[in-house]
């Protein structure tokens, strides 16, 4: 009986917790998809707090309901309205077997035997499943599934792209889903050529609000797909859809990948893939490659980075050609091993100079200065020889980038 009752109570608690979490998740997803950043932050905090409070209340209610060995007899007695007969027999028999010879002991035993049917487990706990709790759990789960299924179809229309001649620095970033995106020339004097990066967009800053903003963005990406652009983000795909010829310039707002420290130039793309999608694929490949490299303890990374620093920069610090040898991410294109097309990469010559928005600085003229004398020749003897890296494996997603960046090279040929 105790096992049956406790199982019933545990199920009830579990179903109530599932119901609570289901409702909470549904509300959070709805807030993330259609709420503003502020509404999502406030709403998700409130929903989370209420969910935690509800779970605590459920635990406090269900916990005492679970029967231990000592309480089970009293509970059964009370439930079966035995007026203490069962618990008296058990307690007296357990404590003092000698008193079983008492005058009324046989009568008490017989009374319990006569009422045996009233305290069978099937009668005291008639149902194995707590129906109401189960129904609420199923309803909450259905609500979550329905939200996740229906949400992609309710994705808001992408914003239209318009081009203006006014410098983007005068345009304030927005944090709601825009119906249009303005592409404007870069503001003169901007340190990184990314006007509009005043920190007002989602994901900017640190702390709980930043975490909530990232969570909201993450939920939108998961529900609306990786091509989803955050509110106020540049939408190159929208630009492509607009049918207008791309012009040099920057979007007024930042994309999600931009917020992660990777710049995506707002140049027109003639490829089938959107730039944002390519950037995300590159991000994933970069992460995988970095992990693999760290596992191998490749010490040449720093050296390659230094070498890449010495190479002429094509687009400045924010150029997409950073994978071609800038100091920002020398390992961006993965390990320097040749891979075929099956691996989804292609080989890129590291010496290939790229072209960027800003003019490439001219290489220094004249003979290089003579090398200094080796002060510690013994150290050189301990170094292992390394083949020079001439090519680097680049993920296929970067192909449109790279082809465009190195187009002048091909044209020269």
């Amino acid at each position, binding site marked *: 009986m105790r096992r049956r009752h406790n199982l019933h109570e545990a199920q009830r608690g579990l179903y109530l917790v599932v119901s609570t979490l289901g409702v909470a998740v549904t509300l959070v997803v709805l807030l993330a998809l259609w709420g503003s950043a502020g509404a999502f932050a406030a709403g998700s905090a409130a929903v989370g707090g209420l969910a935690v409070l509800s779970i605590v209340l459920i635990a406090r209610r269900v916990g005492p309901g679970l029967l231990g060995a000592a309480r089970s007899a009293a509970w059964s007695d009370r439930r079966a309205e035995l007026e203490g007969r069962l*618990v*008296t027999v058990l307690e007296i028999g357990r404590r003092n077997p000698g008193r079983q010879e008492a005058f*009324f002991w046989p009568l008490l035993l017989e009374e319990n035997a006569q009422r045996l049917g009233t305290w069978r487990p099937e009668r005291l706990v008639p149902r194995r499943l707590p129906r109401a709790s189960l129904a609420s759990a199923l309803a909450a789960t259905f609500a979550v599934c329905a939200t996740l299924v229906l949400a992609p179809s309710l994705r808001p229309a992408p914003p239209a792209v318009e081009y203006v001649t006014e410098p983007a620095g005068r345009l304030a970033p927005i944090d709601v889903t825009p119906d249009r995106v303005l592409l404007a020339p870069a503001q003169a004097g901007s340190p990184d050529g990314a006007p509009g990066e005043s920190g007002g967009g989602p994901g900017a800053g640190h702390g709980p609000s930043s975490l909530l903003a990232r969570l909201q963005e993450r939920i939108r990406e998961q529900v609306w797909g990786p091509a989803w652009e955050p509110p106020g983000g540049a939408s190159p795909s929208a630009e492509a859809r607009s049918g207008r010829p791309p012009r040099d310039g920057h979007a007024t707002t930042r994309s999600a990948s931009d917020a992660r420290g990777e710049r995506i130039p707002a140049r027109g793309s003639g490829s089938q893939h959107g730039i944002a999608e390519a950037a995300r694929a590159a991000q994933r490949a970069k992460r995988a490659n970095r992990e693999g490299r760290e596992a191998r303890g490749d010490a040449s990374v720093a050296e390659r980075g230094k070498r890449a620093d010495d190479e002429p920069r094509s687009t400045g610090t924010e150029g997409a050609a950073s994978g071609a040898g800038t100091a920002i991410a020398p390992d961006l294109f993965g390990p320097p091993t040749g891979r075929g097309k099956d691996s989804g990469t292609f080989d890129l010559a590291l010496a290939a100079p790229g072209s960027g928005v800003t003019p490439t600085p001219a290489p220094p003229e004249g003979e290089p200065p003579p090398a200094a004398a080796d002060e510690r020749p013994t150290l050189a003897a301990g170094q292992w020889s390394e083949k020079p890296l001439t090519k680097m494996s680049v993920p296929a997603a970067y192909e449109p980038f790279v082809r465009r960046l190195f187009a002048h090279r091909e044209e020269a040929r």
Partner: protein
Amino acid sequence: MTPTVAAAAIEDFRQTFAALRREVAKVVIGHEAAIETILVAFFAGGHALIEGVPGIGKTLIVRSLAEALNLSFNRIQFTVDLMPADITGTRIINEGPDGRRELVFVEGPVFAHLLLADEINRATPKTQSALLEAMAEQQVTVAGTTHALPSPFFVLATLNPIEMEGTYQLPEAQLDRFLFKVVLEYPSRAELERILGDTTAAEVPTVEPVLPRDRAATRVEELRRLVRCVLVAPHVERYAADLVGLTHPGRDGEVPEAVSRYVVYGASPRGGQALLLGAKVLALLAGRAHVAVEDIDRVAPSALPHRLVVNFAAEAAAFRPPEIIAQVLAAGRRRRS
């Protein structure tokens, strides 16, 4: 012992109890709860203190009960000049036929099965204390000689709450020896009409003895032993002990606020015994061979209040012991659940 015999014994007890109540109810109009409480105290082997205004039927109840039980009955009207020897008896010089004189013990009115101590608070504490040994040990000691009292021995004392002049408060030790204290309230209007009609008619109802004269004492003793055989589970004993403990002040955070504020001394272990013995009688009356916690709850309002010694603040706030016990019961139920 077979279950059938035990069940028959319970049924016999219930029938005897019901017959006694029925006979007493012939002459005592109303006061059903008080009569039942007095009978419970009687079969539990204790004594009862009845408090009520004059003319409400205290003496009538006791006398009717004695007639129904068919036991010996004595009445002592307590007064200020009553001496202990007037209760217990004394030794007198008796001259025999041969002219020899010897000291002979003459039993006092305490030597009876039922003793009515009418207006017990009018006697001095010294005289009141003469009953202490009789009530607790069912014996009296006179001039170094102990004399056993007849069994069963049952003291019913009455207390007049309104005439305080020339009275003496019962000492706590004596109050503690009363199993229950019964408070008689005024009869209702309908009961009063019946009282007026029945007691002024040509034929006054009389009480018929329930038990045969020669076997009455034996039968009562059997029934009292039966009461003692009722089973009590440990959790019921714990509950009774909890209730007694909750009347003890000084346990901050455990006892009710009323106990902390108003009670000077709580119930003694006799209070716990009274709870269990009374509950055993109630269990038999309910046809059960065991005590339930509900029996304890029913007994507590009669068994505990007169054992509390309250302070002046309680009297100033008109906070009476029954109200304190109500809080104790509520606290006990919370602790039990």
